[in-house]
């Protein structure tokens, strides 16, 4: 059909022309076209130039800072600004001015007055979230998304951590006295004693569990790494103590010494150096830096970074070498150089003897630093197993342990600026390196091997292996940056925590003072988060049957599982009992009683079946017979919340009270307009009685029993749980009571049920006893 728009089709007289003369058509519309082109060329602008930009090209403070604009628009923008007459903006003092060394240093020392900084602090502060712990400002986690990358580094590459916060304590004196002193604080059942033949030569570092004197198995203090060093041919003991335990450890040791010497019993002033009974204790603040390199690539990184000095003649002019000549120390440079070059082509540090110690004298690490960040790769080469089996006697000796030499090295440390200045002055051919420059001193260092996992049933062999490097203070950043440039990835405290979980080690055992503090800190933190939420968004723990969502009621749990009511408890560390327990679990045997079993917690490692993660404070429960076979998941029925009604009433009353008070206030105001009544202000961090009561109603704190609160009997709690990359499933570390474990094994079970605090589901998990020392 034809279109019916025009006249002709409707019967009118207007006909459409068959053709259009374009010239005529345009000329008749010439005025319209001219108007349009003019309006395009000279638009009637009401906006500023930058407002014309599309949204994705707009930047903040564009109008103030013309450099945010595209270059071609800047000119017009400036014209507009001039026209509008904006005042010239005030200049901030230049960065150069602000960061003048004197001002900056002042600022930094001011900041360090309250808490200590590590030597690499400023490097870390630019890249990490920093937190305050144990009197230090420490790196917690890197700012970039690097959680998985840090795990990958620890398992396939190299993870670098600054653990200089571990304080060395030097103990000198006759060997018998030291042995006697430590026999009060340690127990043979937990492992080798401190004066075992294996450690006394100084070739290996060791670990030891420390307790309060005479209170084993109670009163745990912490796990301490120790190392025997030979200074002036007499053995000295160096303990590396975690800063959370230093104060306790020191006071205990000082206490032992002063007790043994009745003449100077009430000498409390001598805190740092107690010169009693021939044993001297000295905490070496700020004398060493200690870095931890974890992962197989830590060995290639070290071999690339550390270039041992070959001949004495090249370093003879160093001040500390002259100093060492006075002590008649043989530096054994040649032998150590040969040994290091023999073992330098390994692919992983876990191929070397466990916890071996190597003392080296190396050139300044800034010499070997690559221009660009490169990955250190190991060279392939055949190594005879001879070098791997034996540790040569000379390997561990190091002049670093002499206080005088250490101080000399520290004093003559060359800063980065001086180093660069020196190079640019003396370096005639660019790029040429004169490693034997006598002006730049060589540095004594000590390496301690970390064996990682050595039990393939527990963790894959070699996971967590690496090196600890101890360098004199003043050289921390020089070494640190060289490691980073060779491809090490730096991590913080979060990585330490996660590594402990992956390795299946107890990070802070709950029976130590430091563990209790950590628990307290976590509790406050979690409580804070919980009560920040509005009531409708809070998990109702009463309904879920979780009595302690923020803390661990160890003593109540132990009381429930025994007839006694314990005040104190301990974590099982007796090696023999642990291996017996493990065997009994595996073979479904029986467990014999141990002494103090009623006060004993057993550390266990859980592998959760299925998906999903188990978090902190999750309940570990005893399964019943059908639970492990049935395919149906066991769910906790909803508990009744008797407090809900009370909370509602309280809230209503409180609101009424507030209203009443407000009315009263207004009345008073009207009455006495002239009088200025002083209002009593409450401190902001102090909670009112009402809030405290309400919180108590949300999470009651007066709990008498925890064992039978839920569907299944509670036997313990998870202290740390997350997805484990080594096992590729959720793993957790928890503690159960010894009696509960006995009950479990007696009923021929080797699996447990786990329930998160915010869920009703019980999940099945395999358990292993943690035996890693």
């Amino acid at each position, binding site marked *: 059909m034809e279109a019916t728009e025009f006249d002709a089709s409707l019967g009118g007289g207007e006909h459409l022309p068959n053709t259009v003369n374009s010239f005529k058509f345009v000329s008749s519309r010439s005025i319209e076209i001219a108007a349009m082109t003019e309006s395009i060329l000279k638009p009637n602008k009401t906006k500023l130039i930058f407002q014309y930009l599309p949204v994705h090209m707009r930047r903040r403070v564009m109008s103030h800072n013309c450099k945010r604009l595209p270059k071609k628009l800047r000119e017009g923008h400036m014209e507009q600004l001039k026209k509008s007459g904006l005042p010239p903006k005030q200049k901030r003092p230049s960065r150069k001015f602000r960061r003048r060394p004197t001002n900056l240093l002042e600022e930094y020392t001011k900041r360090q007055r309250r808490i200590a900084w590590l030597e690499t602090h400023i490097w870390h502060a630019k890249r990490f979230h920093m937190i305050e712990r144990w009197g230090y400002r420490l790196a917690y986690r890197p700012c970039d998304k690097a959680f998985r990358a840090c795990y990958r580094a620890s398992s396939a590459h190299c993870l670098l951590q600054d653990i200089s916060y571990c304080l060395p304590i030097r103990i000198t004196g006759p060997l018998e006295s030291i042995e006697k002193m430590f026999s009060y604080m340690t127990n*043979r059942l937990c492992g*080798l*004693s401190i*004066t*075992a*033949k*294996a450690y006394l*030569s100084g070739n*290996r570092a060791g670990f030891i569990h420390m307790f309060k004197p005479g209170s084993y198995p109670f009163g745990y203090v912490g796990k301490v790494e120790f190392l025997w060093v030979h200074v002036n041919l007499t053995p000295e003991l160096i303990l590396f103590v975690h800063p959370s335990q230093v104060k306790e450890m020191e006071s205990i040791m000082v206490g032992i010494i002063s007790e043994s010497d009745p003449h100077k019993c009430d000498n409390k002033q001598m805190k740092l150096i107690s010169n009693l009974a021939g044993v001297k204790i000295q905490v070496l603040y700020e004398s060493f830096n200690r870095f931890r390199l974890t992962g197989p690539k830590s060995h290639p990184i070290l071999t690339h970074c550390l270039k041992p000095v070959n001949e004495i003649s090249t370093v003879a002019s160093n001040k500390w070498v002259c100093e060492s000549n006075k002590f008649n120390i043989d530096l054994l440079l040649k032998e150590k150089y040969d040994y290091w070059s023999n073992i330098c082509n*390994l*692919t*992983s540090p*876990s*191929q*070397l*003897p*466990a916890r071996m110690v190597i003392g080296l004298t190396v050139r300044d690490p800034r010499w070997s630093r690559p221009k660009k960040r490169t990955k250190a790769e190991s060279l*392939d080469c055949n*190594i005879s*197993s001879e070098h*791997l*089996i*034996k540790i040569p006697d000379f390997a561990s000796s190091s002049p670093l342990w002499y206080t005088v030499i250490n101080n000399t090295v520290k004093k003559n440390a060359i800063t980065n600026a001086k180093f660069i200045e020196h190079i640019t002055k003396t370096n005639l051919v660019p790029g040429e390196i004169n490693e034997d420059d006598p002006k730049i001193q060589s540095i004594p260092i000590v390496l301690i091997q970390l*064996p990682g996992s*050595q*039990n*393939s049933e527990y963790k*894959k*062999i*070699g996971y967590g*292996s690496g090196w600890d490097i101890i360098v004199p203070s003043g050289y921390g950043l020089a070494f640190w940056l060289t490691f980073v440039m060779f491809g090490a990835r730096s991590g913080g405290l979060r990585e330490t925590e996660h590594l402990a979980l992956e390795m299946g080690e107890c990070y802070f055992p709950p029976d130590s003072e430091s563990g209790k503090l950590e628990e307290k800190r976590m509790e406050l933190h979690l409580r804070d988060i919980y009560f920040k939420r509005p009531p409708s968004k809070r998990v109702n723990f009463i309904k879920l049957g979780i009595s302690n969502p923020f803390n661990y009621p160890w003593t109540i749990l132990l009381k429930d599982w025994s007839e006694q009511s314990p005040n104190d408890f301990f974590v099982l560390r007796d090696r023999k009992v642990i291996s017996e327990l493990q065997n009994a679990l*595996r*073979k479904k045997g029986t467990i014999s009683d141990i002494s103090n079993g009623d006060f004993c917690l057993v550390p266990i490692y859980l592998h959760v079946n299925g998906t999903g993660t188990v978090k902190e404070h999750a309940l570990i429960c005893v399964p019943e017979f059908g639970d492990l076979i049935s395919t149906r998941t066991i769910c906790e029925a909803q508990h009744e919340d008797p407090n809900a009604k009370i909370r509602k009433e309280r809230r209503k009353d409180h609101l009424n009270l507030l209203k009443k008070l407000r009315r009263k206030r207004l009345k008073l105001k009207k009455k006495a307009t002239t009088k200025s009544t002083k209002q009593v202000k409450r401190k902001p961090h102090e909670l009112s009685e009402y809030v405290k009561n309400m919180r108590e109603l949300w999470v009651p704190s007066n709990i008498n029993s925890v064992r039978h609160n839920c569907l299944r009997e509670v036997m313990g709690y998870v202290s740390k749980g997350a997805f484990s990359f080594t096992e590729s499933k959720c793993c957790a570390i928890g503690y159960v009571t010894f009696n509960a474990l006995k009950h479990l094994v007696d009923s021929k079970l080797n699996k447990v049920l786990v329930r998160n605090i915010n869920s009703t589901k019980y999940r099945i998990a395999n358990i292993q006893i943690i035996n890693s020392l």
Partner: protein
Amino acid sequence: MGDETNPKKRNDQQDQRRKPNKNYAVKKRLPLRPREGDNVIFVTKKTNFKAQLDKCCDLLTKGEKDIILHGLGAAIQRCCNLALQIEAAFCGTCQIEVNTGTVDLVDDLEPLTDDLDYGAQVRHSSSIHIRIFRTAMLGANQ
């Protein structure tokens, strides 16, 4: 893949074998590794078999001329299995070259009493090294 021995029995055997002396605890070290590279694959008992098979097939189809599989001890069987499955998957376009050998493993002997020093022992373990190489390139992948 065929290693379905009774775990309980295996553990008992291991316990006996691993304790040469009551005074020592045996701790294992990582074995020395042959040369690593993109086309070198270490087969262990824990790695997912299917994942490694896919990885090998990927490498070969992406134009790698040869890949080398290493297997040690109990993983030898898996290693052979993997190689044979790859060969089957490539229907005669690749060949297998097998070498066997012995690897020295070093164990740490950790003393359990104070008056002993650390020791070390050398164990021997059989190993297999399989090289899989392409004999004919598929037209599409050249």
